[in-house]
Each structure stands twice: as structure tokens, then as C-alpha cells.
């Protein structure tokens, strides 16, 4: 089968520690944590007080800016603590499970009989809405918008990221049902698959299938939207992760919120990387133990892939959105004369200034060392090599840094999300923090343009 879209730019980072296609069920502790920071831009307003009991699927807070958007508990039990930081910002909510999973049940007619508005209100009420995100801005979708389409990526290309067909292996019916539900609220659902895909994804109905050939970031939904139906000023597209489509499908079958999550535990320091069935907000400690990681050693635990994930810690929890849990060794060590070309053969490089180009089959145990210090922007052309979009990355980043909104619009700020710039973070000779710059720029756009 031929590709509809072929992307030639990008970079495969050969990282050690890919998960074997084995699904284990993770032990669960009774401690759960939710991080409001997972929902970028949301200011949480609590619905439940410390010490009060909660049911699985019961809303525990909502978004101050949009009270319809509610966030529900992944367990039944008690809300034990609201951890606050500076200016009383809520950093984390800890829950103690009673292990009975008493759930809130929603009643509604069959999906076929529902109209768009009632599907939306069921998604909002059930706690499934936050899984729908929007472009531009890469934030939770606004239910009042009419998107030009819903985009689902059926493959991930980020280093060691979870294999999506494998995640959905036992959820294929739910996935199809989820697609049917989404078709109620939008005119078009797009699903992307690799050019040579032969999995069940290619036979899903009710979607427009796009076959994409290319290396990372070809699997990023933002890059795909850019080539399928690019977002213009004033337009909105929605995106959902594949497993969350299945979750929505299940909700409309059972009437209860399903907090389960399949996670690929990956990374060079893992003894036996594999997949785990766990739950949103569950503590990461049992998984780390199962894959043979010493939680007290110098490691970095990342909710998400190593390029765009969020760091957590040994006492932390599984994030709200990620299907990958990456673990790296911390790189806080010195390397004598490590800057010399062709020194340090254990560190991969896109340029041929290290010997890694000699070993195309080799995988690397990379750590979190910066491999240099931040410098002025000097080298040109390297950003363009890893961004397969008709966007001038360096010019856009510079306009973002000086907060020139008009120029940012003209250069395509609506089409990008931080994760699309993750490889630029990686590849930058001057160690520019491109993702942070894009995130700040998007926040500025939300504030100024809306």
C-alpha cells in the first residue's frame, strides 16, 4: 500500500530499552495522585474538600475558565490531601482508594439516538472531555467550538513510545465504538497509520484513513494535521489519543468512566521493559519495581516520551495522558574533553561530529546530560532538518522570543505544539529550549487572541 503523505525530514534517536510486546497487569497501591499541571492552562476549582469521600468517576474539580469541563476521580475512596504551592496554586491531589471501585453510573439512550449536543454533555459530565485536546494552542478543547475535524494518530514515532496497535489489542471494539461517538460531534474523523500498516486500524470504519511514511516526528498529530488539512487562523482541530478513543467508546457502552491506562515502561536503565495495565493517577513505584529499577538511584522518571514528556519522581504517579513511562539515568557527571569531536562514542549525534554515524544499528543508553551549555544561536539549518512542516522554525522561534504576535501568526504559530519542536530541543547546537519558547508563545496567544 502506498503512502498518502511522505515526510523526509526528521530524526530517529536510537535509544536503548524498547518495551517488549508483553502486557502485564501492574500491582496497584491505594495511593493515587492527580496533577492539575497535566491540564495546561486549567485553573482548578475544587468540588470536593479534603477528607471527603469520592466515587470513581465523580467530578472532583472543574476548570475555572470553563466550568463545564470537569475532572473526575480515578478511584472510589477519600480525597486525602490537596497539595498547594506558591499563591495557593494546587500542585497535586492525593486520593486514597477503598479498593471497591464504586462508580458513578450515567444513564442515556443508545448512541444512535443521541444528537451532537447530548453526546457533548455526556462527555463533559463523565470526565471524558479532558481527553479531547485542540489545536491551536495544545490545550483541552473548548466544547463550544466546531472543529474542522478530529485527528487521531495511529502510530507513534517518538523514541521508545508505546506501540498504538498493541495498546488497543484488547480494545478494538471500544475503539470503533469511540470513533462512532466522535462522528456524532464532528463532520470528519481522521485516523493516520504508517504507510505499510496491516493492523486492525486500517479496517476501522467511519474515519478517513491517511497513510503516512516517515520517521519521527511523522507520528506527531500536529505534523499530520499540517499535511492533511492545515489549521488556518480562526480554525480549530481536535485531537485525541488512540487509547482515549477506546475509553470514550467504553463509557458509551457501560455508562461508567474507565480509569484504566496501558503504559509502555521503557528506557535504557530498565532490566525488562514491557507494557503494563495500570490506572490514571496510580503510583509509579510498583511498575518501577516490576521492571527492575532502583527507585533510589540517580534516575529521571518521565511521564511520556523522552523528548516531550514531563518529569515526575519515584513517589509520583502516572500522568493523565501518557501511554509511555520513560526512565533515564541522570547525567549529572563531568566528561573530560568531552566536547572534542569524535570523543564520547556512547552519545548519539545527528551530525557526523561523533562516531555514531558509523554504527547505524546501534542503540544508545542516553542520559539527561545537556552535553554542553546554552549559547547564542549560531548554527543554521539544523532545525529545518528535523521539522517536516512548511514552517521556518528558527524565524518562528525568534518571533516567539520577542513576542511579536503578528509575525507569529504569519509564520504559523497556530499549526504548532511544543511536542513538534521537541527534536529541535534535542538537535540544537546552542541548546535552545524550543519547546518552552513555543509553549510560552502559545500561552501569550491564548491571552491576547483567545
Amino acid at each position, binding site marked *: 500500500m502506498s503512502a498518502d503523505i511522505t515526510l523526509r525530514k526528521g530524526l530517529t534517536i536510537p535509544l536503548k530499552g524498547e518495551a517488549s510486546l508483553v502486557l502485564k497487569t501492574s500491582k496497584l497501591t491505594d495511593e493515587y495522585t492527580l496533577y492539575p499541571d497535566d491540564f495546561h492552562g486549567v485553573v482548578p476549582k475544587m468540588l470536593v474538600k479534603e477528607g471527603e469521600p469520592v466515587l470513581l468517576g465523580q467530578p472532583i474539580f472543574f476548570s475555572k475558565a470553563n466550568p463545564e469541563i470537569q475532572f473526575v476521580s480515578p478511584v472510589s475512596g477519600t480525597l486525602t490531601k490537596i497539595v498547594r504551592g506558591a499563591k495557593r496554586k494546587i500542585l497535586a491531589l492525593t486520593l486514597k482508594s477503598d479498593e471497591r471501585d464504586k462508580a458513578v453510573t450515567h444513564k442515556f439512550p443508545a448512541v444512535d439516538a443521541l444528537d451532537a449536543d447530548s453526546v457533548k454533555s455526556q462527555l463533559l459530565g463523565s470526565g471524558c472531555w479532558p481527553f479531547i485536546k485542540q489545536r491551536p494552542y495544545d490545550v483541552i478543547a473548548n466544547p463550544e467550538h466546531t472543529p474542522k475535524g478530529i485527528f487521531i494518530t495511529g502510530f507513534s514515532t517518538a523514541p521508545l513510545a508505546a506501540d498504538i496497535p498493541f495498546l488497543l489489542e484488547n480494545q478494538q471494539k471500544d475503539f470503533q465504538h469511540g470513533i462512532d461517538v466522535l462522528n456524532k460531534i464532528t463532520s470528519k474523523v481522521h485516523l493516520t497509520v504508517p504507510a505499510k500498516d496491516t493492523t486492525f486500524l486500517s479496517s476501522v470504519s467511519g474515519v478517513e484513513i491517511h497513510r503516512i511514511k516517515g520517521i519521527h516526528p511523522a507520528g506527531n498529530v500536529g505534523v499530520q494535521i499540517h499535511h492533511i488539512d492545515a489549521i488556518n487562523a480562526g480554525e480549530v482541530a481536535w485531537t485525541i489519543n488512540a487509547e482515549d478513543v477506546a475509553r470514550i467508546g467504553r463509557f458509551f457502552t457501560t455508562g461508567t468512566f474507565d480509569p484504566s491506562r496501558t503504559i509502555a515502561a521503557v528506557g535504557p536503565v530498565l532490566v525488562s521493559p514491557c507494557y503494563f495495565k495500570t490506572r490514571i493517577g496510580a503510583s509509579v513505584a510498583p511498575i518501577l519495581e516490576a521492571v527492575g529499577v532502583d527507585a533510589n538511584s540517580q534516575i529521571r522518571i518521565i511521564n511520556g516520551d523522552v523528548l516531550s514528556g514531563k518529569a515526575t519522581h519515584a513517589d509520583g504517579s502516572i500522568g493523565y495522558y501518557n501511554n509511555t513511562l520513560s526512565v533515564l539515568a541522570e547525567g549529572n557527571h*563531568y566528561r573530560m574533553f568531552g566536547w572534542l569531536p569524535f570523543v564520547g562514542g556512547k552519545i548519539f549525534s545527528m551530525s557526523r561530529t561523533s562516531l555514531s554515524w558509523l554504527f547505524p544499528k546501534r542503540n544508545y543508553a542516553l542520559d539527561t546530560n545537556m552535553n554542553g551549555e*546554552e549559547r547564542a544561536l549560531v548554527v543554521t539549518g539544523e532545525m529545518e532538518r528535523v521539522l517536516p512542516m512548511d514552517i521556518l522554525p528558527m*524565524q518562528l522561534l525568534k518571533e516567539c522570543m520577542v513576542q511579536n504576535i503578528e509575525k507569529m501568526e504569519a509564520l504559523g504559530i497556530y499549526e504548532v505544539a511544543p511536542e513538534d519542536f521537541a527534536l529541535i530541543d534535542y538537535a540544537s547546537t546552542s541548546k535552545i*529550549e524550543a519547546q518552552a519558547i513555543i509553549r510560552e508563545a502559545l500561552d501569550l496567544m491564548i491571552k491576547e487572541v483567545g
Partner: protein
Amino acid sequence: MKLRERIDALKKPFGKGQKFERFAPAVNAFDTFLFVPNHTTQKGAHIRDAVDLKRTMVTVIIALLPAFIYGVYNTGYQYFIQSGLAFTFWDALLHGALKIMPMVVVSYGVGLAIEFAFAVYRGHEVNEGYLVTGLLIPMIMPVDIPLWMVGLSVAFAVFIAKEAFGGTGMNILNPALTARAFAFFAYPTYMSGNKVWVSEASNVDGISGETILGSLAAGNDVSYSMFDMFVGAIPGSIAETSTLWVLVGAAILIFTGIGSWRIMIGGVLGAAVTGMLFNLWGANALMSFSWMNHLVVGGFAFGVVFMATDPVSAAQTTKGKWIYGVLVGIFCILIRVFNPAYPEGVMLAILLMNVFAPTIDHYVVEGNVKRRKKRLSTTLTPAS
């Protein structure tokens, strides 16, 4: 790690909130030269490429070395050939080294001193860009230029061309070429004519040496074969003469991905086509000088490979690099052919295009913006 502990102890007074905190950039420059620091990723991607600015700049220096070493040898070779003395390879190398190493020391000494001072003054780390500039400057000077002129040119280039615009990454003009242009216009008698290109030519009567382009501009014949010109056994600025070793450097730059092949190829194409057109016209000696010879004499190869590709002062967009490269080639030949006062055109051609590079980029960026606007207008008014 004993050495590491010692350095950490030495650095203590330069730490945050300590007595000499403001001098930290200067100390860090030496420390990071010894060790890649233990900094870890704090935001953004959790892993980073092995390449950094130090490694990039050192790769450029490695690419410069073949031409530099040949330049040192050729300095001695030209001197001994002209003076008729018997010599060995090592004699020539030693003679060149005694002439050139002091220039390198002065260039690095003056330039790095200013760079360190600005880093401390501005409170940022020392950027590695000068490591390359500092070697380039002596490489493009005539061998007999007095050391104080090298120092003054370096100071002018770093102050005016670089720091006045905001430092590394912000400059409009290539600093090394600015140093040469400064010396060229401030001290023309030391930078052109037939008494400066061979070591000791200004002191010893028997020695004279005209560059090939200089002879042509003056209406004289050229006695060198194209092979001499390609290998570089001709008079000229210290390291510009050998196209062969410049090509080796170009291969290193292109292979490692550090230098832009688009600019290099564009430059060669621009110069070759312009040269061919002038060959057809052939109104003066420089016009009828074969276009192939134009590519191998003078500083053309050196300029296109090492100067025009400076990523900061060149065009920065992919398309822009092609346009910029081609224009450097065209203007280089134009200046050579039409302006007898400047027989060598590559320096001025690159400086001119440095000035126009932002304009080239502007139009490439506008092209991208227009495509986006067009897409918007087609979605707003669907085709009927």
C-alpha cells in the same frame, strides 16, 4: 576524580553570591574547556545531542588545519624559492612557523581578551565563535604585516563588527573578513602591491612576489601553471593559496554537516558561470583569464568554503543559502574583472552579501508567509 575536586575548590570564590561572582564566565570558559559540565536538562527534551558549540567550532578548526599547515609551508617555500637559497621541507615549515605563529598568538590574545571582557561585562558565558575567527584572521593576512596591525585589526573586528551588534550570533558582517577589510583600507601599502605577498619581500631587494590576480590587473603575464595554482605554490595571503587543501577542509565541513554545502556549491556555480560569460566577452586580461583558473586562484576557494559559510553572517534560510552563495560567486568575479583597484574580489563580495543576507532571508520568509495567507483565502472562499 581528584582534578575535578581541585577545580571545584578553585572555583568556589566565583560561585553564586561569592566575592568574585562576576568573573565566573571567565573561569567557566577554562573549566568547560577541560570538562563538559554536569548540567542536566531542566525543561524541554530530556535527552540532548552530543554536539555543542565548542564541538562545532573545533570541527571548523580541524577543517582549517590542512590549509593552515600548507600556508605555513608555502610561506617558507616562496621565501626560499625567491631568494634562491637551498632548503628542505622542514626549513620551509620552520621559516613559515616563525613568521605565522606570532600572528596567531596576537590574534588569539587580543581577540579572546576582548571576548572575555565582554562576557564578564554582559554576564554571559564566553561563546566559542572566536576560536575560529582567531585562526582565520592570520590565515587571510599577507605574511609580512606587522603584528601590531594584526592586533589592531582584531580589536576593530571584535569591537565594531561583533560586540557592537550584540556579540556572537548577532553580527551582520563576518568578523574575520572585517579585520581584513580594516587592514586593507587602513594600511593599503601593507595589504596590496607586489612587495607584501612573500616573506621578507619588503626588506630584501631580490625578493618580489605579485599575486596572480595582481599581475593580471597590472597587465602582466602569469607564469604559473594551473596545477601550481591548484596546489597553492603561489604568492598570496598566508592560507588562501592552496585550493587542494581548502577542498580537503570543505570535505570535512560538508561531511560533518557543519558547513553549508548549498553556499559552497552556489558560490562555485555563480563564479563559474560569470567567469564563462566574461571569457566569451574577453575585453581585458582578467576577462579572458579562464573561468577555471578564476576558481583556483586568489582567495576564492578559501572565501567560499570558510568565510561565506559563516552561519551567522550568511543567509539563514535553506533557499536563501542558495541565492546567497550564487551571488557571492557572481560578485567575486565581477569585482575582480571590473575593478582594477581590487584585483581580489572575494573579500568584498562576501562582505557585500553579508549585508544583503537579511534581505534575501526576508524574501524567503515572505514567500512562506504568502503561502500561508493564500491557503487561508482559499479556505475562506471555497471553489465553486
